[in-house]
């Protein structure tokens, strides 16, 4: 019995050896195993002679030929841009598959198996620009931007109410759906973005398209790159100019372009900008190409050792938009890291003493604003506890002023200091903050003394301009 066991053992061992051999045989069927290592070590080999096909497929060429007649403005703009130079045509960005929720057909392709969408989101751009879109999607320009317009849970629906009930005049009986949403479509949505609604033909309805930077699309994608790189030239030079930011970052609540223009940076831009080099390659656009920064230079561009980023939160320390300024964290960025990065930006053109002064000045201004804000909150809590706050904030002088305190003058002061605009830091900023505060104080004192709310709002205008 023992003998047989040993013999079987030997036979088994030999069998195992042969199984290994068999695996080698199977290797002919199975993979060579070098694919994975290739995936991680492949590097661009652009030194090779490339035979590049500059032409387009017949379908792609047909789009251009037809649209050159029907919408010449689009094609004329496109042909001057880098997309055209790279042979990226209408077809490449506008074609979607039939099952896409946005699939439709223009008259030129009716009846064919080609489907297109007029809506092109950041998801399409990411096919060739994945890094830029990944950064962008982490920034306040994406989901956070359209949140106030589309999310009823934001501020307990106060913003939705503002768009339709108040601005849309529902509060005085307007029930025409078109005019109720007119302000949202032309105002809020054009900067913040909204949510596209589709009709039965998969085309956008109810003025929900086009929209601003945080636009949300029916296929779940988010973000509109053409806000800064406008259609159909998609120019990098354009996005580097302050005008690209100015279409949204302006006005009484965040006059960033005005602040920039009155800053020393803006002065140099206005004086010498025409002579600057605007079209250098990303990361290679450096001091020398320009003699003062634009918005993009500090907030986005590659400068010195820093690489280009499409996450505009990345180099920010403070949240200068909301009621109380705090160091950015969570979905709004990493303020401590942001402060270091911004100092790195400054250091390309400024010495450490100058940088220290500016950064300290901003910290001090934030502390000053927060001091005012904390005082206002204390008064409001006091009034609320005594039942001396009006139910409708928009016809209650105290609450109306409190809104202007943070949303208008407070932002002007903080952002004015941050970007070196003296007029906005002072006259449109802290000078008005103390005035607004004193008016709030007067209303507070009157209500406490008389134990009632004044019969008419004392704030009759649209607020301090």
């Amino acid at each position: 019995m023992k003998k047989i066991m040993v013999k079987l053992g030997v036979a088994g061992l030999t069998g195992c050896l042969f199984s290994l051999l068999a695996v080698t045989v199977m290797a002919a069927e199975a993979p060579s195993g070098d694919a994975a290592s290739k995936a991680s070590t492949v590097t661009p080999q652009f030194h090779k002679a490339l035979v590049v096909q500059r032409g387009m497929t017949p379908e792609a060429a047909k789009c251009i030929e037809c649209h050159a007649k029907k919408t010449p403005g689009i094609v004329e703009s496109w042909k001057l841009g880098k997309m055209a130079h790279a042979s990226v045509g209408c077809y490449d960005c506008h074609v979607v598959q039939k099952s896409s929720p946005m699939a439709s057909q223009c008259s030129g392709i009716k009846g064919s198996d080609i489907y297109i969408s007029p809506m092109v989101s950041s998801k399409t751009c990411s096919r060739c620009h994945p890094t830029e879109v990944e950064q962008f999607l982490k920034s306040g320009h994406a989901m956070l931007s359209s949140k106030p317009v589309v999310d009823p849970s934001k501020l307990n629906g106060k913003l939705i109410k503002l768009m339709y009930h108040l601005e849309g005049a529902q509060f005085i009986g307007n029930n025409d759906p078109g005019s109720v949403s007119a302000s949202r479509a032309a105002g809020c949505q054009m900067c913040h973005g909204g949510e596209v609604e589709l009709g039965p033909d998969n085309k956008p309805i109810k003025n929900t398209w086009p929209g601003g930077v945080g636009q949300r699309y029916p296929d779940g994608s988010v973000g509109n790159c053409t806000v800064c790189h406008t259609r159909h030239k998609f120019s990098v030079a354009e996005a580097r100019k302050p005008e690209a930011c100015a279409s949204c970052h302006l006005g009484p609540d965040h006059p960033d372009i005005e602040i920039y223009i009155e800053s020393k940076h803006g002065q140099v831009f206005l004086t010498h900008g025409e002579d600057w080099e605007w079209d250098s390659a990303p990361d290679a656009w450096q001091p020398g190409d320009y003699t003062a920064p634009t918005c993009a230079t500090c907030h986005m561009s590659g400068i010195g050792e820093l690489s280009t980023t499409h996450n505009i939160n990345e180099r920010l320390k403070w949240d200068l938009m909301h009621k109380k300024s705090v160091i950015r964290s969570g979905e709004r960025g990493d303020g401590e890291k942001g402060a270091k990065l911004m100092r790195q930006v400054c250091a390309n053109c400024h010495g450490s003493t100058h940088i220290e002064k500016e950064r300290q000045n901003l910290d001090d201004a934030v502390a000053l604003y927060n001091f005012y804000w904390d005082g206002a909150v204390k008064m409001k809590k006091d009034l609320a506890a005594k039942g001396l706050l009006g139910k409708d904030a928009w016809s209650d002088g105290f609450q109306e002023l409190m809104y202007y305190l943070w949303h208008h003058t407070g932002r002007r002061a903080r952002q004015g200091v941050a970007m070196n605009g003296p007029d906005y830091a002072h006259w449109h900023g802290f000078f008005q903050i103390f005035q607004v505060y004193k008016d709030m104080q007067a209303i507070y004192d009157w209500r406490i003394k008389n134990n009632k709310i004044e019969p008419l709002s004392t704030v009759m205008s649209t607020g301090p301009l």
Partner: protein
Amino acid sequence: MNLLKENSGAAALWILIGFVLAIIVSFVTAVQVKSTSTVQFCNSCHEMNPFYDTWVTGPHGLDKKGAIRARCVDCHLPHDSLMNYLTTKTKAGIHDAKAHWMGKKTEWLKQWKERGPYVHEAYESGCLECHKELVAPGIPAKAVSAHKAYLAGQTERNCIDCHHMVGHGDLVQRFRDLGYSE
């Protein structure tokens, strides 16, 4: 040792038996791995019919003249190592056979809706097994820039993220046409 000496003739016989057995087992296994790798084998279960039909007309399928055809196993099994290939093949085979015999019906559209239509088990290592050189002579200019970030390792996106129609065309539309509920 003594044992072997005493019976050296018999031992040689047993070794020979072992050899023959191993050759037979190895041969049968290799043949089975090969025979279960054909498109026809995969499509022998009716559940795979829509995938077969869409593959036939797709960019890697039989209907495309002049195209290099990729079989199911070329994309849906990992090609990074032999061990991984064989274990994944075994696991997936058992999973699919079980689902078939138990008569499980997959609501593909619902499943894709929950996890996004293009998240599926096509392996990047499969693509790269054939497409070894992405920036190859003759490609369009736009394809050079489109693959730049991928080649430089600056993105986590893989082939299927952009080329999701490459295996089965508009698969979502096909299941809609077949009346699958969403």
